[in-house]
């Protein structure tokens, strides 16, 4: 269980590279700075790709949860 609450959830289950990252970027555009996006992914590549995306773009990766073959990321939109 994650300790953060999300303002929006993006489910990319079943999608593969590069779609989870592209959809994350788009979903973040619709949020206000400081709001939190929850991204669900089944692509093992996203485990490294989402943190790389956050590092590069300056959004804050608050938490990563791995459960039952799913990766769940909590990203705070940069201010």
């Amino acid at each position, binding site marked *: 269980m994650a300790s953060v609450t999300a303002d929006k959830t993006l489910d990319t289950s*079943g*999608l*593969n*590279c*590069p*779609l989870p*990252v*592209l959809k994350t*970027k*788009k979903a973040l555009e619709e949020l206000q700075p400081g709001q939190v996006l929850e991204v669900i992914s089944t*692509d093992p590549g996203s485990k490294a790709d989402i943190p*790389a*995306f956050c590092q*590069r*773009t300056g959004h804050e990766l608050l938490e990563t949860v791995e459960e039952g073959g799913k990766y769940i990321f909590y990203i705070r939109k940069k201010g």
Partner: protein
Amino acid sequence: MASERLAIIASKGTLDMALPPLILASTAASLGIETAIFFTFYGLNIIHKEKMKKLKLAPLGNPAMPMSFPPSLKKTPVVGQLAGLMEAIFPGPPQIMGVIPGMTDFMTAMMNKTMKDHGIADVPQLIELCKEAEVKLIPCQMTMEFFGYKQEDLIDGLEPPAGAATFIQYVLEAEKPMIIFV
């Protein structure tokens, strides 16, 4: 002027070689890097209105070819068992089978099915994603003339056709230019 500029040169027109430039470019652009793809030689087919929909995978002369059947096909009763048996006998079709008429279409269909099973976007979808991410799509002027492609044969939303010098100058005028050749 952009501090970082990534340019990818797409010079191949087969299905397997069309995907990497589109995947890399759309991703780089969503990481906030100014990104362009220069489509040259057979790479022009990736942005050709009709040809982009039927790019093929060549089994012949492709040593990486031994390829498994799509997961969804293997799960189908009877057909899946037959596919499993074929894979056990030939671990992928032998190179010589590539000369059999229809083999290229067959391998292309298998590849498309496998991509779909794995949730990988197809070429037209990836092009749309590139456009949305504001990747500059630049057709090569010289090869357009070489193949006899007119502007209207190519998809909409492209940059004006450019020559080699224009393209190289565009990339190198950035502070940190990067070029990837595919």
